[in-house]
């Protein structure tokens, strides 16, 4: 793992078992810098567990996980991993309902996270501009002063993506961003995520094949905790193994 440029994420032979059931079984894959990657797979394929391993929520029994080739993710806790530059969006949108849209983004803003510092922290003009820029990007500028609890489901998803952007991460993990969205919202989300990729790496876990097609990226298919197939949307859709897993039963 020393030859440059290091991939942003490198998983090798990661295995996680819960009471004997292997949620991840020798999973290996690599995400390059600036890449937008989609991960699909049937229920129980290990998509969420994979995110748990990357963000430090779950420790693997075996295997290695490196961020930018130097940070061993299997040894760090959630806070440190978040501060290294890995942002995570949960499957269920998780925003702070009793805070305004602006405050939600302010809390996510990359800044000193220590308690005594935040007690006296104010917002510099540049930081305020950054919050406003992200609100523009996620299309919520008009709702800045509204409580996040009043937003629609789709808007909450966008707000959470916006919160990830505020952290200025190098890698974003996005779990089922379009679940429960209208067609129009789904389209907007695809545009949003494609706009984010490039400067940052984005890993999207998704079920919705229409959306996966709209993203038009390299797709990794997980099955029973390991990689079943990898390639373009057309490639994996025509892969005999994938067809069998999805349709063969």
């Amino acid at each position: 793992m020393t030859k440059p440029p290091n991939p942003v994420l490198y998983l090798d032979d990661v295995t996680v078992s819960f009471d004997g059931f292997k949620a991840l079984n020798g999973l290996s894959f690599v995400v390059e810098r600036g890449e937008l990657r989609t991960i699909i797979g049937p229920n129980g394929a290990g998509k969420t567990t994979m995110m748990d391993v990357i963000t430090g929520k779950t420790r693997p029994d075996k295997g290695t996980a490196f961020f930018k080739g130097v940070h061993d993710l299997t040894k760090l806790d959630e806070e440190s991993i978040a501060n290294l530059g890995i942002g995570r969006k949960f499957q269920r949108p998780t925003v702070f309902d009793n805070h305004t849209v602006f405050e939600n983004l302010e809390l996510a803003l990359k800044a000193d996270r220590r308690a005594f510092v935040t007690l006296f922290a104010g917002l510099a003009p540049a930081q305020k501009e950054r919050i406003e820029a992200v609100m523009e990007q996620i299309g919520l500028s008009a709702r800045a002063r509204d409580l996040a609890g009043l937003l629609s489901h789709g808007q909450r998803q966008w707000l959470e993506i916006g919160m990830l952007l505020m952290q200025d991460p190098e890698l974003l993990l996005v779990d089922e961003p379009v679940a429960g969205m209208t067609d129009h919202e789904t389209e907007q989300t695809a545009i949003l995520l494609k706009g984010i990729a490039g400067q940052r790496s984005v890993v999207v876990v998704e079920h919705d094949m229409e959306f996966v097609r709209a993203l038009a990226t390299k797709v990794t298919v997980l099955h029973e905790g390991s990689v079943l197939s990898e390639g373009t949307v057309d490639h994996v859709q025509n892969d005999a193994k994938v067809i069998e897993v999805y349709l063969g039963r």
Partner: protein
Amino acid sequence: MSGPLNRSLAAGMETKARLYVRAALLIVIALLAALPLLNLLVPPGSSLYLPDFAVKLVGKWLCFAILALAIDLVWGYVGILSLGHGAFFALGGYAMGMYLMRAIGDRGVYKNPILPDFMVFLNWKELPWYWWGFDNFLFALAMVVLVPGLLAFVFGWLAFRSRITGVYLSIITQAMTFALMLAFFRNDMGFGGNNGMTDFKDILGFPLNTDATRAGLYWASLLMLVLTFLLCRMVVRSKLGRVLTAVRDAESRVRFLGYSVTNYKLFAFTLSAMIAGVAGALYVPQVGIINPSEFSPAASIEAVIWVAVGGRGSLVGAVLGAFVVNGAKSWLTSYAPEYWLFILGGIFVAVTLFLPRGLIGLLGKKGNGPRVTKPTMANLSAMLGTVPPEPKEQRP
């Protein structure tokens, strides 16, 4: 839609409402400050005369209001339901009690200039090391905040680091205060056993049984209440305060944003314990006694009920709740003492089910409390700081 217009209208109404609340608060503070004058300046025969016990009683409520603020800070804003805050209150009280005991000097029953009466009675020959320094008022004041603060810090560090939340945390706080109560009941602990400490003579040279000292302690309590209120307001309105409420509403999201939830909870819990200690220290010279019953779990639970009744997540609500419930208690225990506990329990159930935002919610004031509207079991789990179980992701 006239969205922006509505919003600015609403904002205007809100600033106006805020002004009213502020004006009302200032009037209440002024009235409270003037109260002892009715005792000091009005002759005892007059119908306006306020008896001594009333000054003492309201002075006690002021201390309870400070305790309520401490509980609201951790429960209302961070979602930590502590059922053991009475322990911090009592520890602050004991620290003050130890100073007052030493201040008795040789005027005790046994005329021992160094040892308090109960130690002479137990045939102790010298002062235990943990009593050293308590003859100094400033040292005692430092202990009033440091002892509860240290206990909260160590206890909180162990609990929050292990991610103990919700009911489990409430139960161990309860166990903590119960264990301390049992310990303080023991004579060989050196804190006066079940009799505690009493028969205090004076504080800083001022005799405790005069009207002027009583009024002085009352004013000190009122001043501390105002200062504590301002301190808590500063904390909850800072970015730190927004992180704290975020922890209350979605703890794991805060963690994934890169904040150390443990440190934030520890900050709030320790600060809250220190405030509770100050409340206890002001309480003891006014009631003239401190004993292990202050550690009883029931006392801590009662304090939580004040906050629930007033409205958690609102600082004004916490203070209001302390006054209303204790006012009702003073009034009812003189008419129907045997029913008081039932009434208290009834109030708690009713508030939980029908007024999740407390009395302050009735005033329509926009508190920062969690928004729950329907009388459901969800209110109860919100009160307890437990999140209803999330639908588990399917795994074969």
